[in-house]
């Protein structure tokens, strides 16, 4: 908790979320947050399955239907669900090397996204990009594999939205490890200076590959760093989707109202390895991870609140499974790019 460790004359005081501090969202919203998280998880489980299906004998990263590095987001669904619930597809989202949950929550077409991950001609990038390079003009979604370098382009999208007099905004997401990269600092300063409609979101999953946040970050909360730019900073603890929803609601409203950027840090959980194939030998708390899965926890909470019951949960899971299976089937059924076209598309 960082309560009142960084009060500022120039900006609202960064706070940590207090359980119960915010009003509970409408039941429909709560059910939707849950459904989004389930869809994200169902998707990652499917990619996990497909990714490992044909990497053997042994594990050859370059082999199979889905080759290359694979960074999955299981455990971080509360961030995607809670933030993207406030966006429309006219808003921009820039994500990282770990982009699937955000793409899904923002409404990127599942089939074309999956086709991209499978390297197919029907993919978002016609198979040229891959899972770290998902570009969807329809939802203004993009991501980058270079740490913190997804922030600057988000400024430009926000700048364009601002110049056109719209209330559209950009959400720029990165991990806690990325908050020590120069692009983070330059981007927050420029966004604050020009009051750009941006919401900066830091997913603190405690780890940057094998480096724990204490070995990378000089302050306990990146929300404190909002002070350096005179903007609001808030840290959400406990991977709590409703706290994320509340915090993001404020930040998004502020941006839409022309009041400038905010910085949110969300303490979330990387349930699996940094990338597939990561044995995580460096990770002492590994045993506690499954018990901290945010989805069963939220499901339990919503069942107690009468928002969910067996039937509703089953329906949500079935919808998710159906959508994901359709997407995977679409990808598998799509053609691979013609090798003779490999040198096309460098220039418009």
């Amino acid at each position, binding site marked *: 908790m960082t309560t009142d460790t960084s009060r500022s004359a120039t900006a609202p005081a960064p706070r940590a979320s207090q359980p119960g501090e915010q009003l509970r969202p409408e039941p429909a919203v709560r059910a939707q947050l849950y459904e989004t998280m389930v869809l994200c998880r169902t998707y990652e489980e499917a990619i996990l399955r497909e990714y490992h299906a044909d990497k053997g004998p042994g594990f050859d990263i370059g082999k199979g239907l889905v080759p290359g590095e694979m960074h999955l987001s299981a455990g971080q669904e509360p961030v995607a669900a809670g933030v993207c619930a406030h966006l429309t597809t006219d808003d921009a989202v820039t994500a990282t090397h770990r982009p699937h949950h955000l793409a899904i929550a923002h409404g990127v077409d599942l089939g074309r996204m999956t086709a991209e991950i499978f390297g197919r001609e029907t993919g978002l990038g016609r198979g040229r*990009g891959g899972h770290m390079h998902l570009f969807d003009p329809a939802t203004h979604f993009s991501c980058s594999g*270079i740490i913190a*370098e997804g922030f600057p*382009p*988000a400024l430009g*999208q926000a700048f364009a*939205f601002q110049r056109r007099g719209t209330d559209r905004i950009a959400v720029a997401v990165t991990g806690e490890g990325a908050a020590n990269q120069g692009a983070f600092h*330059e981007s927050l300063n*420029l966004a604050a200076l020009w009051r750009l409609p941006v919401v900066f979101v830091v997913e603190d999953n405690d780890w940057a590959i094998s480096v724990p946040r204490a070995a990378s970050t000089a302050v306990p909360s990146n929300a404190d760093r909002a002070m350096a730019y005179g903007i609001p900073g808030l840290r959400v603890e406990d991977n709590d989707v409703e706290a994320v929803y509340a915090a993001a609601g404020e930040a998004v409203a502020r941006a839409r109202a022309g009041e400038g950027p905010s910085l949110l840090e969300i303490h979330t959980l990387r349930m699996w390895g940094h990338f597939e194939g990561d044995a995580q030998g460096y990770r002492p708390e590994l045993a506690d991870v499954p018990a901290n899965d945010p989805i069963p926890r939220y499901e339990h909470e919503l069942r107690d609140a009468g928002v969910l019951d067996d039937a509703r949960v089953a329906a949500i899971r079935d919808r998710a499974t159906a959508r994901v299976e359709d997407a995977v089937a679409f990808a598998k059924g799509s053609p691979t790019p013609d090798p003779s076209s490999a040198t096309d*598309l460098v220039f418009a």
Partner: protein
Amino acid sequence: MTIMEAPQATRRLTTSKAMVEAIEQEMERDPSVLYLGEDVGAYGGIFSSTTGLLERFGPQRVIDTPISETAFIGLGIGAAVEGMRPIVELMFADFMGVCLDQIYNHMAKIHFESGGNVQVPMVLTMAAGGGYSDGAQHSQCLWGTFAHLPGMKVVVPSSPADAKGLMTAAIRDDNPVVYVFHKGVMGLPWMAKNPRTLDEVPEGEHVVPIGKARVAREGSDVTVVTLSLSVHHALDVAERLAPQGIDVEVIDLRSLVPLDREAILTSVGKTGRLVVVDEDYLSYGVSGEVVATVAGVDPGLLVMPAQRVAVPDVPIPYAHDLEYAVLPRHDRIERAIHAVTAR
């Protein structure tokens, strides 16, 4: 020079004024064009790349930035992705090291990674080059580095008319274009200048298509392939050698990406002798590429070994005599021409 419409009235302008004129005309024509960078507003650009634009278009379209190249070049990328046509200035090419990721991993690759679904129509301008004792971190050309990395066009004007025509083309191009202007071609009042930096420039719309080299001087004995400020030096030398019966053809590449290999091969096919003059570093750069272009098609075209006149893989020294010893200037160009024309 290629002019796409009927030849028009001309008057003499410096390269910097010609460049600004193109920007001004395009900003008039297209409200989505704007100019961002350090000291591009009230100052008018350290090398006069934006003189008068603030007065004309105001701070909403001519925008001074903090010293945050990664942030504001990336901002240009995002704005271009959303349909604006930003011109973003990196004050010196030498500063690429603080922002190259946005340039080469983002600006230049997004179109390809997106399968052609996202375009990045932006121009990245930058000053380059030495000759005035600005030292190892403020005198580099580095265009070979940009040209090596795929996904961005690289234009390198030498003449006032081309500075205008290539800028117009760059702004209208749907691809990212790196526009490198050598400080020595700008015709700045506070820097020694070649008379060729003041020349006739078409009024009104003037477009020079990116990718076609220019025969700056026709000649039959030796081909000098060069770019930017070195074109002026090469023309000086060619004029000096003409009375000695050495007829030099000077090819102004105008752009490195795309590279007009045809023009190089045609000229060398005619002369059989090749000198490449480049103010960037010698190895793994422009001069090697030009020579390899010929040797990769027909080494027999070269009746003499090709000569490369470039900065000999040394940081640019500060002291005047040391700097002039490593720059590809008249003396070295002349020696190289004599070497390839020796019998």
